[in-house]
């Protein structure tokens, strides 16, 4: 196989790879909106993580791996 052929294969693989990642990305957009529409997820509530950030602030989603005595 010549160097030119190897270069061409690399270029085609890159284009195909880009296409696949783009498809995954667009699926992700659909997934985000669909899961929120169905009521499975509420992404917007996570905005509050920056606002309520005291050690004794209410925890949005408790980390199940950590035993703690925080008020819910």
């Amino acid at each position, binding site marked *: 196989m010549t160097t030119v052929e190897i*270069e061409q294969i690399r*270029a085609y693989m*890159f284009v195909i790879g880009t296409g696949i*990642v783009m498809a995954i*990305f667009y699926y*992700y*957009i659909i997934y*985000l*909106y669909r899961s*929120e529409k169905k009521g499975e997820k509420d*992404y*917007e*509530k*996570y*905005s*509050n*993580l*920056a*606002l309520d*950030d*005291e*050690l*004794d*602030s209410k*925890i*949005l*989603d*408790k*980390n*199940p791996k*950590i*035993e*703690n*005595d*925080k008020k819910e």
Partner: protein
Amino acid sequence: MQSNATMEYDYSVVKLFMWTAVIFGIVGMTIGVLIASQLAFPDLNYLLGEYGTFSRLRPLHTNVVIYGFTLSGIWASFYYTAQRVLKVSISESGLLKALTKLHFLLYLVIATGMVVSLALGITASKEYAQMEWPLDALVVLTWVIFGINMFGLIGLRREKTLYISLWYYIAFFLGVAMLYLFNNMEVPTMFFSGGLGAWYHSVSMYAGTNDALVQWWWGHNAVAFVFTVPIIALIYYFLPKESGQAVYSYKLSLLSFWGLMFVYLWAGGHHLLWSTVPDWMQTMGSVFSVVLILPSWGSAINMLLTMKGEWNQLTENPLIKFMVLASTFYMLSTLEGPIQAVKSVNAIAHFTDWIPGHVHDGVLGWVAFMIFAALMHMAPRVFKREIYSKSLLESQFWIQTIGVVLYFTSMWIAGITQGMMWRAVDEYGNLVYSFIDTVSVLHPYYALRALGGLLYLIGMFMFAYNFFKTATAGKRLEQEPRYRSPMA
């Protein structure tokens, strides 16, 4: 884990990084103004013998601003923000507390080594990767410790969900780790040449075009993963927190994140347009640079919309001014960059002063403004004192804004003039201008650029004074402010 009833966030390492950000900011920007002045007035090259020449000082300027000022600001913000959004204190783990101190200590050793070695002219001769191999090895060790601290805090977190800023900090860690390792693959010459040369010298493991490709894969991603990704982490935390407004769209922040991650890595090829790299790679660099507008503007517009209904804060709070203008400059430079990456535009723009103009509207307007805002937001919380002077902060904002505008407008004009003059040919195909003709024409713009830089430096000194006085003489606060930072 300890009970959190009597616990507080641990800001000891945050304070250390805040101070180094201020000190490196002064050093890096002072050198910047000096070298900008040298371009306008070449006699300034001979002030300090070999140590004061443009070629010796230019790498010092870029490295001190990137790896001194910016990294310090990022790490101060990271150790502050990570604790808060994860709701865990560094002091809850003795090991993490020790490792954060070790992180700072090693960083200080590297930064000192970097300044001294570059001042002595010891360089690996790769842009933004000038440090020689012994320092590179220390950087890797420091980065591993930073990673342990980051994932250690994440492991101890009480809040299950990682806030969007944390996503960006993780990307900063992973992106730099991968790219730094690849670009700094180097062969210490003495050990492989039978004892020739100094022990600290090395040559790149790659050669020719491959070396250029790897270099600019890193070079542009130093912009991506040091100047963009962690600074977005800053704005996603500090703008909502300072304004008391939740991020406009959390979903948009997630989409912009993945878009940026996917696209940014492949844009570096635009530094090598019209060079010997394969044509498809150049086209890829151009295309990905243009697509990059979308995720960049996604974050920037998300931030501006966060202020929806609260625009009055823009006039009342100088920290909001800094952050909103930073976001606007981010939009400007992420539109300008893709324009420069279009092949036909690049044919004129490449090697001209438009390029440093572009870099500086991004770094001065976006990166440094965000770091100033972050440091001043953190100051009342970590020192438990009111910000010393609101009017000083307001004056700093306007002086520096004028400085940035003078800088990039002069460089736009200079760059395009330069590019056109280089290419101008008469009816026989002979060049119309010699190189020195371009230098003479550009002199007023170089002088204007130096003036813009000087104004920005004056603002930096005002900030340093305000910061020092806040830490030492600001009015004591009884309790931590919830949103807006108190200032006298």
